[in-house]
C-alpha cells in the first residue's frame, strides 16, 4: 500500500510546479483573453534568473529570497512584453495575439541562449532541504514536502488578492465585463499590465521553484507548454481552483502512469484532456462561453462573390510562372517551389475553416501529418501505388476529420481551438510512442513517388495541377450557397439557426472538407520528401499554418498563397543566420503590430484598389 502513497506524494509535488506555472496562464487568459503561448518561456526565464541569483549560496535566505526575486524579475520582463507588444493587440482577433506570443517564444529562446549559453545548468539545492526523510517506509526528499506545502499557500495568496483587495475586485470586474469597467473610469492599461505581471511572476516562480529538482535548459519552454495548457483547459480557463485541481489530476495521472503503463506516458495526458473536454467543454471549473462577454473582433468579410471568381490575370500569371520553372532545371528551386506550393495548400485548407468558417484550429497538423502517415504506412505495409494512395491518404484524414469534427463543432472560440489541439497532440503522441508500427521518431522512409511521377518534373506538374484544382474547388465551395451559410454561422450562430441553418452540421461538413484537403496536401508532401516524421504532426507544424495565414492576411482569399510562399521562402533563407529565431520572432511581432491585415492587406488597401479603379475607368 505504501508504494501508492509515496507515488501519490510525488504526484503532489510535481503538481506544485505545474500549478504555479499554469495558474499564471489561467489568470492572464481570464482577464485579458490573451492565449499566451509564450508562458513556457517565462517559466524558463524564471529558472535561469533564479539560477543566476542564487548561485552556490548555502544561505536559506538567499535561496528563498532568490526564488522570489527571480519571479519578480520575470514578472517585470512580462510587463515589458505587455507594454511594448500585447497592449497594442487587445482589440485584434485572438489569433494575432497568439502568433505574437509565438514571436515572443522565439525571441526569448535566442536571448536566453546568448546570455546563459548552451550548456544545461544544474539547479542549486535548497539549503536545509537537501536530504530526504523517511515516510511510510520510503525516502521522500524534503524539498518535495516543501513544494507540496508551497502551492496551497500560493493558491490562498492568489485567492486573498482577488477577493480581499480592491485591485482584485477590479480585476474580477474586468473579467466579467471589460468595457463596463473601462466606462467606470478604471485605467484598464494599468490593470492589464498588473495582471500580466502577476501571471509572469507565477510562471517565473514555478520555473525557479523547480530548480532543486532539475535545473535550467533551453528546452524547458516547449517542454512545459503543452502540459500547462492541458492543466488550464482541463481546469477551466480563468479558474485558479480549477488549475490547482487539474494540476493534481494530471500529475497523479503521470505518477501512476509510470507504475502501470511506463510506455504510454504522453498519450495518457492528452487522452484525459480530450475526454474531459468532450464531457465538460469548458473544463472542470470553467464557465460556459455563452455567459461570457465576447471580445470585440475585427471582422472583414471576404470579397469573393458568387459571380466574380478571381480568375483574373494575376492568378494566370502565377500559374504560368510556376509552369515555366522546371525549364531552368535546378533541382533545388523545384524542391523549394514544391514545398512552397504544398504548404500554401495546407494553409489554404486551414483558411477555409478559419476565414469563412471562423473556426480557429490549433491542431490542423493532425490532418496534414495524418495524410502523410496514412500514405507512408500504406506504402510500408501494403506497397500500394501512388495513384491509389493519393485518394486513400486524404480519405483516411477525412474519416479523422469526421470523428474529430463531430466533437469539436460543439465548441467555439478558444475551446474549439484547444480541443483540436488536444486531438492533434493525442495523434502525435500515438505516432511518436507506437514505434513498432510508425517507427516512432525514426519515422518512415523510402516513400517515393511511383509510376510516371517518379520523374521529378512530372511530380512537379502533378503537385501544381492537384493543388490548383483543389484551391479552385475550395474557392467554389466558399462562393457557393454552402459557403454563404458557413459565413452566416461564423457571424451569428443564433440568427443562422433562426433562419433554419443547421449550424453544427454546416461546420462539421466544412471541417471534414478541410480535413480531406489537408490530407491531400500531406499525401503529396510525403512523396516530395520521401519520408515522414512525427515533427510534421507536432504543434509547430500547426503553428506554421497559422503564421502563414497571418502573414498573408486571414480574411483575404489570396492570404494563404502569399503567406505560405513567403513564409517557406523566408524560413529557408534566414535559417542560414546563427540567430535566426531572434530575427524571425522580431519580424513576426513587427508584422502584427504594423500590418495586422497581413501582406495581402497591405496590397488590397493601396495598390490593388488603384489598379482596380484604373481597370474600371478604361
Amino acid at each position, binding site marked *: 500500500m505504501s*508504494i501508492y502513497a509515496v507515488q501519490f506524494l*510525488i504526484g503532489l509535488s510535481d503538481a506544485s510546479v505545474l500549478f504555479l506555472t499554469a495558474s499564471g496562464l489561467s489568470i492572464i487568459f481570464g482577464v485579458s483573453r490573451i492565449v499566451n503561448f509564450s508562458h513556457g518561456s517565462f517559466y524558463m526565464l524564471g529558472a535561469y534568473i533564479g539560477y543566476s541569483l542564487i548561485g552556490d549560496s548555502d544561505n536559506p535566505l538567499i535561496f528563498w529570497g532568490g526564488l522570489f526575486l527571480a519571479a519578480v524579475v520575470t514578472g517585470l520582463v512580462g510587463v515589458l512584453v505587455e507594454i511594448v507588444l500585447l497592449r497594442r493587440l487587445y482589440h485584434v482577433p485572438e489569433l494575432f495575439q497568439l502568433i505574437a506570443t509565438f514571436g515572443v517564444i522565439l525571441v526569448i529562446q535566442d536571448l536566453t541562449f546568448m546570455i546563459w549559453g548552451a550548456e544545461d545548468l544544474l539547479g542549486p539545492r535548497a539549503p536545509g532541504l537537501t536530504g530526504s526523510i523517511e515516510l511510510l517506509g520510503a525516502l521522500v*526528499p524534503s524539498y518535495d514536502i516543501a513544494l507540496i506545502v508551497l502551492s496551497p499557500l500560493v493558491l490562498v495568496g492568489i485567492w486573498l488578492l482577488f477577493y480581499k483587495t480592491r485591485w482584485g475586485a477590479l480585476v474580477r470586474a474586468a473579467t466579467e465585463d471589460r468595457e463596463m469597467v473601462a466606462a467606470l473610469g478604471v485605467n484598464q492599461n494599468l490593470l492589464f499590465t498588473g495582471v500580466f505581471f502577476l501571471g509572469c511572476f507565477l510562471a517565473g516562480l514555478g520555473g525557479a521553484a523547480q530548480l532543486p529538482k532539475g535545473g535550467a535548459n533551453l528546452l524547458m519552454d516547449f517542454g512545459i507548454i503543452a502540459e500547462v495548457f492541458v492543466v488550464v483547459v482541463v481546469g477551466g480557463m480563468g479558474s485558479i481552483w480549477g488549475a490547482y485541481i487539474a494540476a493534481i489530476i494530471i500529475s497523479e495521472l503521470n505518477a501512476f502512469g509510470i507504475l502501470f503503463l511506463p510506455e504510454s506516458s504522453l498519450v495518457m495526458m492528452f487522452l484525459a484532456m480530450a475526454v474531459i473536454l468532450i464531457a465538460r467543454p469548458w473544463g472542470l471549473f470553467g464557465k460556459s462561453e455563452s455567459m461570457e462577454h465576447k471580445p470585440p473582433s475585427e471582422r472583414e468579410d471576404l470579397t469573393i462573390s458568387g459571380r466574380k471568381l478571381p480568375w483574373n490575370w494575376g492568378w494566370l500569371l502565377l500559374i504560368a*510562372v510556376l509552369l515555366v520553372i522546371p525549364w531552368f532545371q*535546378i533541382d533545388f528551386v523545384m524542391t523549394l517551389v514544391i514545398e512552397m506550393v504544398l504548404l500554401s495548400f495546407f494553409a489554404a485548407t486551414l483558411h477555409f475553416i478559419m476565414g469563412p468558417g471562423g473556426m480557429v484550429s490549433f491542431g490542423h497538423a493532425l490532418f496534414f501529418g495524418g495524410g502523410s502517415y496514412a500514405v507512408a504506412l500504406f506504402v510500408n505495409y501494403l506497397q500500394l501505388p501512388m495513384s491509389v494512395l493519393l485518394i486513400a491518404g486524404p480519405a483516411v484524414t477525412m474519416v479523422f476529420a469526421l470523428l474529430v469534427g463531430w466533437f469539436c463543432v460543439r465548441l467555439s472560440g478558444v475551446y474549439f481551438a484547444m480541443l483540436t489541439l488536444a486531438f492533434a497532440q493525442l495523434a502525435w503522441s500515438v505516432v511518436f510512442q507506437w514505434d513498432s508500427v510508425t517507427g*516512432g521518431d*525514426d519515422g518512415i522512409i523510402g516513400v517515393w513517388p511511383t509510376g510516371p511521377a517518379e520523374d521529378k518534373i512530372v511530380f512537379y506538374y502533378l503537385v501544381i495541377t492537384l493543388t490548383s484544382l483543389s484551391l479552385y474547388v475550395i474557392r467554389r465551395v466558399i462562393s457557393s450557397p454552402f459557403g454563404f451559410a458557413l459565413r452566416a454561422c461564423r457571424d451569428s450562430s443564433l440568427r443562422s439557426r433562426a433562419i433554419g441553418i443547421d449550424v453544427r452540421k454546416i461546420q462539421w461538413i466544412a471541417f471534414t472538407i478541410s480535413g480531406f484537403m489537408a490530407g491531400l496536401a500531406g499525401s503529396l508532401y510525403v512523396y516530395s520528401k520521401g519520408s515522414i*516524421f512525427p515533427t510534421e504532426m507536432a504543434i509547430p507544424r500547426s503553428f506554421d499554418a497559422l503564421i502563414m495565414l497571418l502573414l498573408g492576411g486571414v480574411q483575404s482569399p489570396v492570404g494563404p498563397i502569399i503567406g505560405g510562399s513567403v513564409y517557406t521562402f523566408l524560413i529557408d*533563407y534566414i535559417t542560414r543566420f546563427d540567430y535566426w529565431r531572434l530575427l524571425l520572432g522580431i519580424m513576426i511581432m513587427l508584422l502584427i503590430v504594423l500590418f495586422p491585415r497581413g501582406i495581402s492587406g497591405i496590397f488590397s488597401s493601396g495598390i490593388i484598389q488603384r489598379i482596380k479603379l484604373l481597370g474600371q475607368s478604361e
Partner: protein
Amino acid sequence: MRFKPLLTLFLIVSFAGPLFAADTIKIGDINSYKNLPAHTIPYRNGATLAIEKINASGGVLGKQLELISRDDQGKPAEAIKIAEDLFSREEVSLISGTLFSHIGIALGSYAAKNKKLYIAAEPLADALVWAKGNRYTFRLRPSTYMQAAMLAEEAAKKKDVKTWATIAPNYAYGKDAVSAFKNALKKLRPDVEFVGEQWPALFKINAGAETQALLQMKPQGIYNVTFGSDLAKFVREGTLRNLFKDRLVVGLLTGEPEYIDPLKDEAPEGWLVTGYPWYDIKDSTHQEFVASYRKKFNETPKIGSIVGYNTMMTIEALLKKAQSTDTEKMVEAMKGLDVNTPTGPVHYRAIDHQSTMGAYVGWTTVKNGTGIMVDWKYLDGKNYLPTDAEVRKLRPN
C-alpha cells in the same frame, strides 16, 4: 502583378549562389545547431579546427577546404531540403554531420536516392549502417550496438549482479540501446534476469516517480540511457532516494563531457560508463588537439569536438585517396579507408560502412568538483562489431 517582386528576389537569390563558385572543395555540414547547441556547437568547433589545420598545411588536391554549416532545426524534412540546397546551389562535394539518429537515417535515404556521399558523424542508430544501410552512407562514431556491447562485456564481469532494470528515454534511440544491451549481456551471462523497464518521455522525465518505480523492482544492476536534463534529474532523485546505493549502475554515454560536466560535484560515483576522458589521454597527437582546441575556443573539448575533428580528418584522407571529388570515386575510396586520428587509427569497413572508432569505457568519480572517468580503457570498435556473415544478413543488398 503582386507576385513579381517576390519572384524576382527569389530567382536572384536562387541563381546567385553558383556564380561565386571558387576553387575550394566545399563540404556541406548539417546539424541541429539550435535544438541541441550544447552537443552540436562543440562538433562544429572540432570540425572548424580540423579544417583550419588542413588548410594551413596546404589543403587537399591543391585546393582549400570550405565548411558550409547549416541548421536543420531538428527536423528531418528540413535536413533533406538543406541537403538538396547544398548540392544544387552551393555545389558541395559531399555532406557530413548530424547528431539525431532520425535525421541521420533520413539523410542516408536521401544520399542513396540521389547518389551523393553522406558521412554521418554522430548519429548512433544501428539501422543507419545495417537495416537501412546503403552504398552512399558511412558512419564514424561507434554505434549504440557497439557501445552497449562494450558496457555489457564489463558488466558481465560482475558475477554477483544477476537482476537488472533499465531506464531509457521512450524513443527509438532508447529502445535500441536497451535491446542491444540486453542481448549482449544475455549472450555473455545467460543467468541474468531483466526485472523491469522504465520509459520516461524524452526530456520530460518524472524523476521522482521513475526512481520509486525502479526501487520497487529491487534490481541489483541498473542500466541507464537517460541523458541531458533527464539525467540530471534522475541522478538527483536517485541519490536522494538511495537508488544507487549498493547497486551496479551502467550508464550509456554518461561519461561524455556533454552529459557529466553539467552535473558538477553531484556527478554519480562508481558508475560504469562510456565517455570521453580527454583530460587523461596521454597520446601526444591527442594532447596537441586538446591544447589547440582550448586555445582557440577557450573551452574544454567534448565528445562532439573530437567527432567533428575526426570527421574532417576522414574527409581529408578520403580526398587524398580518391584524388577526385567525383561521388562514385569517393564512395569507392571510403570503403576500407584508413585514417589516423587523435584517438587512434580508424578504419571504415567496406562491408557495412561503419568506422572502427572505439569508445572509452571506465568508472565515474568526482574530482575537484567535476565528474570524471577513472580506470578507463579505450576499446577498439573493431572488436565489438558483428561478424561479416551477420552483417550480410542485417544489410539489404
